């Protein structure tokens, strides 16, 4: 089969799925650019008669987009850093150090990975509400959400990092010890640089998962100034007496684009990183 023929065939096979994949983006872009009166026009059209850039400006105010984006970034970054700080040593220990109960620890990780926070949401919520913090409790604080995210992404992070660390030859570190470096130094100067790509991939996945998370945030956060982007967007639709779809779509688009760009750029690394981590 020639390459041209194969290309046409491939695209033909993929086209339905590509269509469905792109549809939400098309809907987002189309609606986010429509002025208010055109959104509720019947029958609907794809192209706005007038491009309403003001939706983004209005949305910024009504949603409090800046504050919500800040919350999302803060929570996702902090959760990622916390998860990594705890997971990297654990993964190092798992892949390098002989220890008793490694098998049990692995099982433990697997089990925690199986537990989605939604199953424990009621308990999480009560836990947060029972821990005093400042004037109130851990419930309705960003810190609470950060800790929960970090805990639930931990298993995945350790798992992925450990499988990757296992592929880094131990000889290099050992060579460094012979050269007189302490174990800690060897890890810092030899091991970590090699492990960086894996840490980066794990970090990105954790970041995006935290960025997109909905249930825990929905349960723990309530103060409008602390809500994350997904909550803000869903709040615009649920329980309102009028839904400004053009603003909703503008918010969704703006919240999605940065992640989409990062994903497209890093897609190749993610594929290798994830398969390595998931299957090994």
């Amino acid at each position, binding site marked *: 089969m020639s390459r041209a023929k194969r290309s046409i065939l491939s695209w033909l096979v993929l086209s339905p799925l590509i269509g469905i994949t792109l549809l939400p983006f098309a809907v987002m872009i189309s609606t986010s650019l429509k002025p208010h009166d055109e959104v*509720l026009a019947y029958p609907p059209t794809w192209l706005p008669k007038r491009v309403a850039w003001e939706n983004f400006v209005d949305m910024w105010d009504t949603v409090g987009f800046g504050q919500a984006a800040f919350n999302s970034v803060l929570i996702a970054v902090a959760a990622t850093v916390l998860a990594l700080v705890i997971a990297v040593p654990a993964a190092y220990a798992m892949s390098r150090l002989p220890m008793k109960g490694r098998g049990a620890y692995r099982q433990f990780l697997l089990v925690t990975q199986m537990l989605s926070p939604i199953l424990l949401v009621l308990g999480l*919520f*009560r836990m*947060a*509400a*029972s821990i*005093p913090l400042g*004037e*109130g*409790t851990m*419930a*309705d604080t960003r810190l609470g959400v950060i800790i929960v995210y970090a805990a639930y992404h931990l298993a995945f992070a350790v798992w992925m990092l450990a499988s990757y660390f296992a592929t880094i030859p131990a000889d290099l570190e050992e060579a460094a010890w012979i050269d007189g470096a302490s174990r800690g130094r060897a890890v810092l100067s030899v091991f970590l640089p090699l492990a960086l790509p894996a840490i980066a991939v794990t970090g990105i996945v954790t970041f995006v998962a935290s960025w997109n998370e909905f249930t825990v945030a929905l*349960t723990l956060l*309530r103060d409008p100034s602390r809500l994350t982007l997904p909550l803000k967007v869903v*709040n615009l639709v*649920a*329980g*309102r*007496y*009028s839904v400004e779809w053009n603003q909703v779509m503008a918010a969704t688009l703006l919240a999605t684009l940065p992640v989409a760009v990062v994903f497209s750029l890093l897609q190749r690394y993610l594929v290798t990183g994830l398969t390595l981590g998931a299957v090994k």
Partner: protein
Amino acid sequence: MRQGWKWLIGACAALAMAAPAKAETVRMTVSFYSAATGPYFEKMAADFHAANPGIDVKIEVVNWSSLLQKLQTDISGGTNADVSIIGTRWLLDFVKDGIAEPLDGMMAPGFKERFIGPFLKPGQIGGKTYGLPVAASARAMYYNKAMLTKAGFPDGPRTWDDVVAAAEKIKADGGNGFGLMAKGTEVDVYFYYALWSHGGDVLDANQKAAFNSPAGVKALTLYKAMLDRGLTEPGPTNYTREDLQNQFKQGRLAMVMTAPFLINQIAKEAPTLDYGIVPVPTGTTQATYAVTDSVVLFANSKVKPAAMKWLDFLFTAGPRIAFTKGEGFLPTTNDEAKDPAFTENERLKVFVNLLPNARFAPTVTGWEDTAKAVSDAVQSVYLGSATPEAALNAAAAKANQSLGK
């Protein structure tokens, strides 16, 4: 470490010394009724502070949908505010758990007498007053004048037969006649309107389910028949009260039953809409639903006298009139009811005149479960998966279980 302790002790000492001079702070949780709610309470808090410099009032505004959740967290964490607005239907649980403080002993003389009797009653349990009615509403039918005039009912429908006849004509012109609400909260209430007006009741005198009476079957059959004949909007299980109100504002729906606050919304969002308000249509009798939200004082509050002072202030005529007018509710105190804003508002009067025939949700455990069972039954009928009789009987069995009968 040692430094830290020193600092801590110092801070404690400073706090202890500062304490007597510090103003008392009353925290209040307020539900979000409209964009005006927050500013209103902030302003009242400032006015109150000006008159009582020793007391600071802090307002926390929460969406209705997350109010129950917030109360859950705060109460189980012991970090609840001093006073809060709650749905009066939650009051029984509050009292059972010992969360709400009885107010009778703390109310200044004459305070209780300010309220309109029927609105205060749902806040009283076992002869004690726990909740003060802060917001009250009743339900009536809004109709689009142009559409109803064309259909031959320029003064709006009076009976269910009128509604059906008008909707038939409106359907022939390609419009949606009767708004049938079957999604979200109050799906059960929408059914109760017809149930009551056909002479039925939700619970009987023994607090046992009675909505599956012949009147109930008749009411639900009526709604279902209208749906089947295309006299309602298509797919009512997709429409919440808010959706129907929006359709009404856009002039795409001829008739809908809802609360007085739609008047304010229309004035703001669809000022050109020509509409009228009539009582809930009658079958055999006249009836409507009335509902209140209450303010409660938490039993664990440390500033009860200050909090009572604040409540006393909130329920004087000035603040009440501003609140009720701003939100589009009904007056709950006698003084505000005398204000021309209410006595001379023809539209609001329809609601006020309905009050003698108004039914309140009874304060019984299991009321919410009953509401859920009835809502589910109503939906299953609209979806065509059960007959009105079978669905209501099944719901009654479920409700009786929750009601402990």
